[in-house]
């Protein structure tokens, strides 16, 4: 002991180390487990509730992960509500209802009801962008129903078929019919030079086909896998893509319109193109469906008389996936069949028209979803700003730019 004390005197760090062990060791044993301190929230729904004393009241629905110790691995979720005059207050009251602090580190999705979106988005998202715990890749979507109702459906889907809404959105974003809808992408567009942000709109609806994954509406919970027959069956569907400009909802784009716009933006990796009524030596009034195999897009800019001419060069590699013709089946080697020139021409025409329509949608609504502003600015800042100065309404620059579309198709 004496030797130990002497050593301790010689090396004060040993003393500090011992002190830290005593302090932190006992405090760790004494303090409750973090899982009992924090409620792990994976989804937030924001709705507008009825007014109280001339104050706007917001309702917050938190999908909270509740850990339960048992032999098999089961994720159990619980919906918790909180109402308040601001998001912060509603969050505090929701925490009071759970009896735990709200932990947002694992937040996957934020759902906003249509009312909230129409009222002004930033009022509600500001709280969420200030919280450092929330990841930039958190999905943010709107819904045409109550956010609370949407989360209830999402919870059921997750419990019964392991379909997670956040994964649903991530998967959709690869397709030409949809868009990436994260906090980061939305804010990037909104705070960017075009002030245009895109957000997916999801809905929980009854499916037309029974083969699709469904969720029973009754409040069954626990391990999934077992289909239960309920009174109504719902599924998550994408209904629109909402386009915001300067914090206001400008236009709602359906899947087909989004496809046209996405041809111009080039932000996709999957999708299909259908050309109809093809008649030649191989086909007889056939409808051909091609899957997008690969794509590349490039913008080339020249100025003519001070007006920018944007040439959009698109190359698409397509694969014939389906031939639809009456009373006949194409008896050709599926791998070695060479797509005839007339089909290639039809595809070119189809894509070119789609792109033209996509540009027209952007022009009509004055929403620069493809961020042509940055492209033009980076190409020649002086010439572009001179062009903008020459316009009566600089916001309307898309209508003054000349667009040329060049499409190259490689089909196999």
């Amino acid at each position, binding site marked *: 002991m004496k030797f130990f004390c002497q050593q301790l005197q010689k090396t*004060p*760090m040993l003393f*500090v180390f011992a002190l*830290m062990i005593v*302090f932190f060791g006992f405090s760790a044993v004494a303090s409750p487990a973090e899982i009992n301190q924090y409620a792990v929230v994976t989804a937030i729904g924001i709705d507008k509730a009825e007014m109280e004393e001339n104050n706007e009241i917001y309702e917050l629905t938190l999908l909270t992960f509740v850990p339960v110790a048992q032999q098999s691995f089961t994720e159990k979720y619980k919906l918790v509500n909180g109402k308040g005059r601001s998001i912060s207050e509603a969050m505090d009251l929701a925490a009071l209802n759970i009896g735990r602090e709200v932990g947002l580190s694992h937040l996957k999705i934020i759902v906003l009801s249509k009312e909230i979106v129409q009222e002004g988005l930033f009022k509600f998202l500001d709280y969420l*962008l200030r919280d*450092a*715990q929330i*990841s*930039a*890749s958190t999905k943010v979507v709107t819904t045409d129903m109550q956010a609370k109702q949407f989360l209830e459906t999402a919870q059921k889907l997750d419990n019964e078929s392991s379909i997670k809404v956040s994964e649903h959105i*991530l998967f959709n974003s690869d397709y030409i019919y949809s868009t990436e809808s994260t906090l*980061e992408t939305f*804010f*990037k567009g909104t*705070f*960017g*030079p075009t002030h245009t942000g895109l957000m997916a709109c999801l809905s929980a609806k009854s499916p037309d086909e029974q083969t699709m994954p469904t969720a029973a509406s009754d409040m069954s919970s626990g391990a999934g896998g077992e289909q239960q027959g309920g009174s109504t069956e719902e599924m998550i569907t994408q209904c629109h893509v909402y386009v915001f400009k300067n914090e206001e909802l400008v236009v709602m784009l359906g899947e087909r319109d989004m496809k046209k716009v996405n041809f111009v933006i080039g932000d996709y990796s999957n999708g299909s193109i259908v050309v109809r009524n093809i008649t030649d030596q191989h086909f007889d009034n056939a409808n051909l469906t091609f899957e997008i195999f690969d794509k590349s897009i490039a913008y080339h800019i020249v100025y003519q008389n001070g007006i920018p001419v944007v040439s959009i060069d698109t190359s698409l590699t397509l694969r014939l996936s389906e031939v639809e013709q009456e009373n006949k089946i194409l008896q050709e080697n599926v791998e070695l069949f060479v797509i005839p020139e007339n089909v290639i021409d039809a595809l070119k025409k189809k894509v070119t028209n789609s792109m033209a329509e996509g540009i027209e949608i952007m022009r009509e609504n004055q929403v620069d979803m493809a*961020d042509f502003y*940055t*492209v033009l*600015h*980076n190409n020649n*800042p002086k010439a572009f700003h001179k062009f903008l100065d020459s316009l009566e309404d600089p916001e309307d620059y898309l209508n003054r730019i000349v667009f040329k579309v060049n499409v190259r198709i490689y089909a196999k």
Partner: protein
Amino acid sequence: MKVLDRSINAWQLGILIFILTFANKILVLPSLLYEGAGMEALFALAFLCLCEFALVLLFFFVKKRFPTQSLSQILQQRLGKGFRVVLYVFIMLFFLSKAVLLYNVTYIFFRNLIYKDTSNFLILFCFLPILNHLAICGLRVLGRTAQLFFPVIFGILLFCLIVGLFGINNRPLLFSNSFLSVIQTGARHISPFGDMMFLFLIIDRVKIKDRQWKIVFSLSGIALFFVFVISLIFMLSYTSTCFMHPYAIFEIMSFVKEYGGLGRIDIISMVLIIILAYFHLAIYLKSFMFCFKEVFEKIDQIYGVLTFNFLFVVVVVFFIVNLENAVVFGQEILPYASILPYAILPLILLFCCKNKKGNENADFQKMIKKHQKNIKKPQKNAVFCENEQNFYEKEKQKNVFERKNFEKENKEIVHLGNEKTEKENEKTEIFEQEKPAKKRQNFVRFEKQKNVFLHSGGEVER
């Protein structure tokens, strides 16, 4: 308490420079730079990085010019004691301010992300003992510890950069800011730079061979390149939303956490930040101690540690308690302090290099000449007999031989002086530990005399 500051070698120096380069530059700075001048802020960053590298180059030239002298000796010989003390007081405050800024940013980062309920005192309790220990143990211990952690730091940094590259998917708006805003942003955020002033404080404790300078330059260059690339990746990943993401190295990992399917890999960057914070603060404390020693010569160095602890806690707890204050402190007050590493110190050192008074090499050339004059010469009016003639010839040969030997030895002292004394130093350190206090004092006195004697061209026999 005796603080042993033994010499460090080229690798240790290089690694300390490598680590110190990241101080205050990879957390909040990229976001603030983008806010100030958009993507063009990278030009300001590149310029500031070059300035930092210029300080390393200046250190190289000063070290070449004064191989064995400390900054204190250089200043005292040419500018007097008063100037030296004043300069050291400013350097001391400079490093204290840098430590406060770094600690605040790191503390707020961890409080916001992990330790939500942790008080400032608890974090200080975790930091201060280790910092004090590292600083008291001495420069060589700090260098060796840094050497031990270097592979971990380098590996994590590389990992962060590679992961961060996957997050780039933006088209940034280029050339949208004026040249003036770039300059203003650079000037406003100069405070994270200038840490290399630490090198001048340890100039006499660095033992480095001529061919080893490339290690120092390479590590310094790589670190600055990493700082630039981290900022570049961060800006390209976030562009217009940089203002929402204040912690660059963490955010570049955070952005891709889901897409890579690897879960929360952003935790890895936190490990890097905590390791770096310990080293940065230890180096700042060490710098403070060096300055304290020069200002208060008669006080034990341990009081330097205590003073640092007291001032550090007071400033951290009472003046700067949130990120806003820390940023204001870093943007509004500290930039003025950067005049010290980027204007005052270089000018003083250039003046000292130009001034031949006390110049080690010039003094040495004088000594050789003086010695050559003192070599015995035959008297003009002497009458030589045959034997005398022979005696003269022998004496002449002897003198020539002696002179050659002298020159040879002195050349070794000039060029390989550090190498030659390195082994001796190790011996003397062992010797030093064994000696009792009184004998040690005598020995130190003897060592000082020996140094003076060596510079005047003499030889020492122990």
